Protein backbone atom coordinates (compact mmCIF):
# COMPACT_ATOMS: atom_id res chain seq x y z
CA UNK A 1 0.00 0.00 0.00
CA UNK A 2 1.25 3.47 -0.86
CA UNK A 3 2.29 5.56 2.11
CA UNK A 4 0.52 8.90 2.41
CA UNK A 5 1.56 12.12 4.10
CA UNK A 6 -0.92 14.84 4.95
CA UNK A 7 -0.87 17.76 7.39
CA UNK A 8 -1.86 16.97 10.94
CA UNK A 9 -4.19 19.95 11.24
CA UNK A 10 -5.56 22.96 9.41
CA UNK A 11 -7.58 25.93 10.60
CA UNK A 12 -10.02 27.91 8.50
CA UNK A 13 -12.94 30.30 8.74
CA UNK A 14 -16.48 29.98 7.54
CA UNK A 15 -16.90 30.75 3.86
CA UNK A 16 -13.30 30.06 2.96
CA UNK A 17 -12.01 27.34 0.67
CA UNK A 18 -9.96 24.63 2.34
CA UNK A 19 -7.36 22.69 0.39
CA UNK A 20 -5.74 19.61 1.90
CA UNK A 21 -2.78 18.16 0.05
CA UNK A 22 -1.79 14.54 0.40
CA UNK A 23 1.57 13.21 -0.78
CA UNK A 24 1.80 9.64 -2.08
CA UNK A 25 5.10 9.34 -3.89
CA UNK A 26 5.01 5.58 -4.39
CA UNK A 27 1.49 5.33 -5.75
CA UNK A 28 1.05 2.35 -8.04
CA UNK A 29 -0.37 2.46 -11.53
CA UNK A 30 -3.61 0.80 -10.53
CA UNK A 31 -4.15 2.76 -7.33
CA UNK A 32 -7.06 5.10 -6.81
CA UNK A 33 -7.07 8.02 -4.39
CA UNK A 34 -9.94 8.15 -1.94
CA UNK A 35 -10.88 10.64 0.76
CA UNK A 36 -12.98 9.96 3.83
CA UNK A 37 -14.39 12.39 6.39
CA UNK A 38 -14.98 11.60 10.05
CA UNK A 39 -16.97 13.66 12.50
CA UNK A 40 -16.57 13.15 16.26
CA UNK A 41 -18.41 10.08 17.55
CA UNK A 42 -19.19 8.90 14.03
CA UNK A 43 -17.67 6.45 11.61
CA UNK A 44 -15.79 7.67 8.53
CA UNK A 45 -17.80 8.70 5.51
CA UNK A 46 -16.70 8.39 1.88
CA UNK A 47 -16.30 11.81 0.25
CA UNK A 48 -14.69 11.39 -3.14
CA UNK A 49 -12.47 9.15 -5.22
CA UNK A 50 -10.37 9.74 -8.30
CA UNK A 51 -7.63 8.34 -10.49
CA UNK A 52 -6.32 11.35 -12.39
CA UNK A 53 -7.05 14.99 -13.28
CA UNK A 54 -10.09 16.37 -11.51
CA UNK A 55 -13.18 14.91 -9.93
CA UNK A 56 -16.00 17.00 -8.51
CA UNK A 57 -19.13 16.11 -6.61
CA UNK A 58 -21.61 17.98 -4.46
CA UNK A 59 -19.30 17.90 -1.46
CA UNK A 60 -15.76 18.44 -2.73
CA UNK A 61 -13.30 18.46 -5.60
CA UNK A 62 -10.25 16.29 -5.97
CA UNK A 63 -7.30 17.51 -7.99
CA UNK A 64 -4.68 15.01 -9.13
CA UNK A 65 -1.63 16.16 -11.14
CA UNK A 66 -0.30 14.16 -14.03
CA UNK A 67 2.42 12.41 -12.01
CA UNK A 68 -0.18 11.38 -9.40
CA UNK A 69 2.37 11.71 -6.60
CA UNK A 70 0.06 14.00 -4.70
CA UNK A 71 -3.57 15.00 -4.60
CA UNK A 72 -5.53 17.92 -3.19
CA UNK A 73 -8.96 17.75 -1.64
CA UNK A 74 -10.76 21.06 -2.00
CA UNK A 75 -13.71 21.98 0.21
CA UNK A 76 -15.47 25.08 -1.11
CA UNK A 77 -16.95 27.66 1.24
CA UNK A 78 -16.63 25.66 4.43
CA UNK A 79 -19.04 25.98 7.31
CA UNK A 80 -18.71 25.08 10.98
CA UNK A 81 -20.20 21.69 10.18
CA UNK A 82 -17.21 20.83 8.01
CA UNK A 83 -15.04 20.58 11.11
CA UNK A 84 -13.84 16.98 10.97
CA UNK A 85 -10.89 14.69 10.34
CA UNK A 86 -10.13 14.08 6.67
CA UNK A 87 -8.29 10.95 5.58
CA UNK A 88 -6.43 10.42 2.33
CA UNK A 89 -6.28 6.76 1.26
CA UNK A 90 -4.26 5.35 -1.60
CA UNK A 91 -4.00 1.81 -2.83
CA UNK A 92 -7.48 0.65 -2.10
CA UNK A 93 -7.02 -2.46 -4.16
CA UNK A 94 -9.47 -4.60 -2.35
CA UNK A 95 -11.11 -4.34 0.99
CA UNK A 96 -8.48 -3.16 3.46
CA UNK A 97 -8.76 0.54 4.03
CA UNK A 98 -5.57 2.07 5.45
CA UNK A 99 -6.42 5.39 7.09
CA UNK A 100 -3.39 6.92 8.73
CA UNK A 101 -3.84 9.75 11.22
CA UNK A 102 -5.68 12.13 8.90
CA UNK A 103 -5.94 15.93 8.87
CA UNK A 104 -8.02 17.64 11.53
CA UNK A 105 -9.77 20.59 9.93
CA UNK A 106 -11.19 23.16 12.31
CA UNK A 107 -13.56 25.77 10.92
CA UNK A 108 -14.09 28.87 13.02
CA UNK A 109 -16.83 31.45 12.84
Amino acid at each position, binding site marked *: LAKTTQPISMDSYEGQEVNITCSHNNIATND*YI*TWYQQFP*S*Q*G*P*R*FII*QGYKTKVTNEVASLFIPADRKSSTLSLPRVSLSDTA*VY*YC*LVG*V*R*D*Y*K*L*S*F*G*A*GTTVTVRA
Partner: protein
Amino acid sequence: GAGVSQSPRYKVAKRGQDVALRCDPISGHVSLFWYQQALGQGPEFLTYFQNEAQLDKSGLPSDRFFAERPEGSVSTLKIQRTQQEDSAVYLCASSFSGGTGGEQYFGPGTRLTVT
Protein backbone atom coordinates in the same frame (compact mmCIF):
# COMPACT_ATOMS: atom_id res chain seq x y z
CA GLY B 1 -32.77 4.16 4.37
CA ALA B 2 -31.16 2.66 7.42
CA GLY B 3 -27.43 2.76 7.65
CA VAL B 4 -25.06 0.52 9.53
CA SER B 5 -26.02 0.26 13.17
CA GLN B 6 -23.91 -0.90 16.09
CA SER B 7 -24.74 -1.77 19.65
CA PRO B 8 -24.03 -0.97 22.31
CA ARG B 9 -22.71 2.51 21.57
CA TYR B 10 -20.71 2.50 24.79
CA LYS B 11 -19.41 -0.39 26.81
CA VAL B 12 -17.43 -0.37 30.03
CA ALA B 13 -15.84 -3.64 30.99
CA LYS B 14 -13.63 -4.64 33.86
CA ARG B 15 -10.35 -6.17 32.88
CA GLY B 16 -10.79 -9.86 32.33
CA GLN B 17 -14.44 -9.69 31.31
CA ASP B 18 -15.72 -10.87 27.95
CA VAL B 19 -17.59 -8.48 25.68
CA ALA B 20 -19.69 -8.84 22.54
CA LEU B 21 -20.20 -6.04 20.07
CA ARG B 22 -22.96 -6.20 17.49
CA CYS B 23 -23.12 -4.86 13.96
CA ASP B 24 -26.17 -4.65 11.71
CA PRO B 25 -25.00 -3.89 8.19
CA ILE B 26 -26.99 -2.26 5.45
CA SER B 27 -29.49 -4.74 4.06
CA GLY B 28 -28.17 -6.53 1.02
CA HIS B 29 -24.55 -5.65 1.60
CA VAL B 30 -22.40 -8.66 0.96
CA SER B 31 -19.24 -7.50 2.66
CA LEU B 32 -18.71 -6.59 6.27
CA PHE B 33 -15.62 -5.20 7.94
CA TRP B 34 -14.47 -4.51 11.48
CA TYR B 35 -11.99 -1.79 12.35
CA GLN B 36 -10.40 -0.66 15.60
CA GLN B 37 -9.78 3.03 16.21
CA ALA B 38 -7.54 4.14 19.03
CA LEU B 39 -7.86 7.66 20.38
CA GLY B 40 -6.38 10.20 17.96
CA GLN B 41 -5.63 7.59 15.30
CA GLY B 42 -7.29 6.46 12.14
CA PRO B 43 -9.22 3.20 12.01
CA GLU B 44 -7.22 0.01 11.58
CA PHE B 45 -8.52 -3.06 9.79
CA LEU B 46 -9.39 -6.08 11.89
CA THR B 47 -11.33 -8.56 9.78
CA TYR B 48 -13.47 -8.99 6.67
CA PHE B 49 -16.48 -11.14 5.82
CA GLN B 50 -18.03 -11.88 2.51
CA ASN B 51 -21.48 -13.19 3.34
CA GLU B 52 -20.89 -15.65 6.17
CA ALA B 53 -17.32 -16.46 5.21
CA GLN B 54 -14.54 -14.78 7.12
CA LEU B 55 -12.03 -14.21 4.36
CA ASP B 56 -9.43 -12.23 6.26
CA LYS B 57 -8.77 -11.99 9.97
CA SER B 58 -5.19 -10.84 9.69
CA GLY B 59 -5.83 -7.64 11.63
CA LEU B 60 -7.18 -9.26 14.78
CA PRO B 61 -4.61 -8.34 17.43
CA SER B 62 -4.73 -11.57 19.39
CA ASP B 63 -6.57 -14.86 19.74
CA ARG B 64 -8.78 -13.16 22.33
CA PHE B 65 -10.56 -11.48 19.43
CA PHE B 66 -13.16 -13.45 17.54
CA ALA B 67 -15.70 -12.36 14.94
CA GLU B 68 -18.59 -14.16 13.35
CA ARG B 69 -21.36 -13.57 10.85
CA PRO B 70 -23.25 -16.87 10.88
CA GLU B 71 -26.11 -15.97 8.54
CA GLY B 72 -24.35 -13.47 6.36
CA SER B 73 -26.02 -10.42 7.87
CA VAL B 74 -25.53 -9.44 11.53
CA SER B 75 -22.00 -9.77 12.84
CA THR B 76 -20.60 -9.98 16.34
CA LEU B 77 -17.11 -9.10 17.46
CA LYS B 78 -16.22 -10.84 20.68
CA ILE B 79 -13.29 -9.99 22.89
CA GLN B 80 -12.40 -12.44 25.61
CA ARG B 81 -10.58 -11.58 28.82
CA THR B 82 -10.45 -7.88 27.97
CA GLN B 83 -7.28 -5.93 28.64
CA GLN B 84 -6.78 -2.19 29.02
CA GLU B 85 -5.11 -1.98 25.64
CA ASP B 86 -8.38 -3.16 24.09
CA SER B 87 -9.93 0.20 24.95
CA ALA B 88 -10.84 1.79 21.62
CA VAL B 89 -13.73 2.49 19.29
CA TYR B 90 -14.75 -0.53 17.27
CA LEU B 91 -16.19 0.36 13.90
CA CYS B 92 -18.20 -1.84 11.61
CA ALA B 93 -18.57 -1.14 7.91
CA SER B 94 -20.38 -2.79 5.05
CA SER B 95 -20.31 -2.59 1.31
CA PHE B 96 -22.38 -3.99 -1.50
CA SER B 97 -19.41 -5.88 -2.80
CA GLY B 98 -15.97 -6.52 -1.44
CA GLY B 99 -14.02 -5.64 -4.49
CA THR B 100 -12.08 -2.54 -5.40
CA GLY B 101 -13.69 0.85 -5.18
CA GLY B 102 -13.15 1.69 -1.57
CA GLU B 103 -16.57 2.90 -0.61
CA GLN B 104 -17.48 1.34 2.68
CA TYR B 105 -20.38 2.51 4.82
CA PHE B 106 -19.48 2.83 8.47
CA GLY B 107 -21.55 2.59 11.59
CA PRO B 108 -21.15 4.99 14.53
CA GLY B 109 -18.92 2.61 16.42
CA THR B 110 -18.87 1.10 19.87
CA ARG B 111 -16.61 2.80 22.37
CA LEU B 112 -15.11 0.17 24.64
CA THR B 113 -13.46 1.22 27.87
CA VAL B 114 -11.67 -1.42 29.88
CA THR B 115 -11.05 -0.46 33.49
